[in-house]
C-alpha cells in the first residue's frame, strides 16, 4: 500500500497527480474464504480490517450489494460520543471512542475526527435528573462528562436560545468534550483501504441471495454474480436488512427496520463549532467542515425498507432546530435523504452468535451505529476470529431477549430511537 504523507503529496505533484495507486483493488472472488463478511459498510469494513490486522486472518471477503459505504455509513449525521448510561454499553462505546482517537494515524487515512464536544440538552426536571445520573455513571466508568447550566451552555453555543422565554426552556445539558464528529465516507474508505492492503477481497455490486446451511452450520453464501462462495465463518453486518438475512438463515430477530431521515442546509459561514442534541424538542445539529448544517431527528414510526420517509417527520425535525436556534429559521435546506435503521427493543445493538453455527450477526444499532464503527468492528472481528464472543460483545447477545437481560439505553440512545 502506498502510504499517504506530505512528502508523497509533493512527489506526486511532480507527475501532476496522475500516478496515485488505486485505493483498493476490485478483485474477482475466490471460491473459498476463512471468513465472509456480508455488508461493506463502516462496520463490515472495520471488521475485515481488524480481522486482518489484529488476528492475522487475511483470507477474508467483504461482499457488498452496492458500493462500499453506500448505506447508512453515507447517510448518518456523523456524531461520535460514548456517554451511555449502563456499564455494558458505556464500555463498548468507550472502546470505540479510544479507537477513534488514534484512527487517522492507524489507518494512514484522514477520517477528520474532530473532538468538538457533544451537548445533550435537558428541558425538564426529569431530563436534568437523567442527565445527572448519566454523567455520574459516565464518570464512574472513566468517561468524560460534565453537567452544565444554561449560562455555561450559552458560553459554548452563543447562538442558541438559552433564555426562559421559550416553549421548552433549556435547563441544562450534559457535555462530553471528547465527543464530536468524523467524516463518515472517509471512515469507510479508510477501513476499506486498510483491509485491502492486508489482502482482504472487497467484492462490490454483488448481492448475497441465500445462505448455504448444512446440519445447522453455515458453510457459505450464494451470490448473484459469482455463484457459491464457501466460508468457514460468516459475519452478517447489514443493518436495515438484517431481518431479511436472518429469514434466509431461518430465524427471526427482535428488530424493526425504520426509515431515518436527515438533511443538510446550504453551506454557511462557521457558526456552530460543537454538536447540539436535544431529546426533548427532538433534534440534533452540527456544522460540517464544508459549512452546511447537518440536521437529524427521529425515525419514521412505520417500518420500511425504501430509504425514504415522510414529510411530517422532516417538518418536526426542522421545527426542533428552529426552536433551539431561531437564527437558523431562514437557512435554506439543500438535500434530504433517508436510511434504513434496524432498531432494537432496548436501543442497544446485537453482536451475537445465532442459532446457526458459525454465523454471527452484528446488527440492531438502530440510529446510533456510526459512533461505534471502529469499536464494533474490533470486537466483532475478535469474535469471528476465535468463534467466541469478545467480552465487550458478550452482553449484546440476541438471546438476551429470551433471558430478559436487556440493556435499556433509551435515555442515552437519545433523540432518534
Amino acid at each position, binding site marked *: 500500500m502506498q502510504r499517504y504523507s506530505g512528502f508523497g503529496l509533493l512527489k506526486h505533484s511532480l507527475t501532476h497527480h496522475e500516478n496515485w495507486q488505486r485505493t483498493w483493488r476490485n478483485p474477482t472472488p475466490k471460491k473459498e474464504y476463512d471468513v465472509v463478511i456480508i455488508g461493506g459498510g463502516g462496520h463490515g469494513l472495520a471488521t475485515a480490517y481488524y480481522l486482518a490486522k489484529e488476528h492475522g486472518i487475511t483470507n477474508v471477503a467483504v461482499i457488498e450489494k452496492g458500493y462500499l459505504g453506500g448505506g447508512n455509513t453515507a447517510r448518518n449525521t456523523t456524531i461520535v460520543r460514548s456517554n451511555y448510561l449502563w456499564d455494558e454499553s458505556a464500555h463498548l462505546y468507550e472502546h470505540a471512542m479510544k479507537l477513534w482517537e488514534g484512527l487517522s494515524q492507524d489507518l494512514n487515512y484522514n477520517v477528520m475526527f474532530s473532538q468538538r464536544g457533544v451537548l445533550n440538552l435537558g428541558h425538564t426536571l426529569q431530563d436534568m435528573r437523567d442527565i445527572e445520573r448519566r454523567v455520574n455513571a459516565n464518570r464512574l466508568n472513566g468517561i468524560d462528562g460534565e453537567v452544565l447550566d444554561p449560562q455555561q451552555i450559552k458560553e459554548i453555543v452563543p447562538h442558541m436560545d438559552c433564555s426562559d422565554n421559550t416553549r421548552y426552556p433549556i435547563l441544562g445539558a450534559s457535555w462530553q468534550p471528547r465527543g464530536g464528529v468524523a467524516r463518515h465516507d472517509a471512515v469507510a474508505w479508510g477501513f476499506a483501504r486498510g483491509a485491502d492492503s492486508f489482502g482482504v477481497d472487497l467484492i462490490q455490486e454483488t448481492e448475497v441471495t441465500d445462505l448455504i446451511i448444512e446440519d445447522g452450520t453455515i458453510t457459505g453464501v450464494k451470490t448473484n454474480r459469482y455463484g457459491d462462495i464457501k466460508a468457514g465463518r460468516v459475519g452478517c453486518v447489514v443493518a436495515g436488512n438484517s431481518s*431479511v438475512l436472518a429469514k434466509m438463515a431461518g430465524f427471526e430477530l*427482535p428488530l*424493526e*427496520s425504520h426509515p431515518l431521515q436527515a438533511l443538510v442546509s446550504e453551506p454557511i459561514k462557521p457558526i456552530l463549532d460543537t454538536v447540539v442534541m436535544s431529546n426533548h424538542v427532538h433534534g440534533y445539529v452540527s456544522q460540517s467542515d464544508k459549512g452546511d448544517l447537518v440536521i437529524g431527528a427521529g425515525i419514521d*414510526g412505520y*417500518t*420500511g425498507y425504501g430509504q425514504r420517509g*415522510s414529510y*411530517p417527520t422532516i417538518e418536526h425535525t426542522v421545527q426542533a432546530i428552529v426552536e433551539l436556534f431561531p437564527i437558523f429559521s431562514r437557512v435554506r435546506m439543500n438535500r434530504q435523504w433517508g436510511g434504513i435503521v434496524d432498531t432494537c427493543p432496548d436501543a442497544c445493538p446485537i453482536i451475537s452468535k445465532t442459532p446457526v453455527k458459525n454465523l454471527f450477526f452484528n446488527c440492531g444499532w438502530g440510529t446510533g451505529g456510526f459512533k461505534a464503527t471502529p469499536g464494533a468492528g474490533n470486537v466483532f472481528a475478535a469474535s469471528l476470529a476465535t468463534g467466541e464472543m469478545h467480552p465487550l460483545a458478550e452482553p449484546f447477545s440476541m438471546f438476551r431477549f429470551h433471558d430478559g437481560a436487556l440493556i435499556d439505553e433509551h435515555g442515552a440512545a437519545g433523540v432518534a430511537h
Partner: protein
Amino acid sequence: MFHIYCPHCAEYREEEEFHAAGQAHIARPLDPEACSDKEWGEYMFFRKNPRGIHHELWVHAAGCRKFFNMTRDTQSYEIKEVYKIGEKPSVVAE
C-alpha cells in the same frame, strides 16, 4: 407521505393523523404462565420485519382513535388494503 383510508371513519386522511403500532396479528399466548422464557421473549420482542408485504397495526390517533390493520409493501410503501381488527387480510405474501 401516506394517504390512509380509515375503515372506521370511512374516509381518506393524511398520515399525520395516524400512528403506526407495529406488526399485526401477534397472538398473546393463551397461558402466559406456561410459556418458556424463549416463547415469552419471542412473543414480546421478536418480529417479522419483512422486506415486502407486511401486515401491521395502525391507530387513527388524531381521529377516531380506533385501531385497524393495514397490509403494506415495506419496499414500495404501497398500501395494499386496510381491514378492521378481527378480519383476515386478503392480500398476503406468497
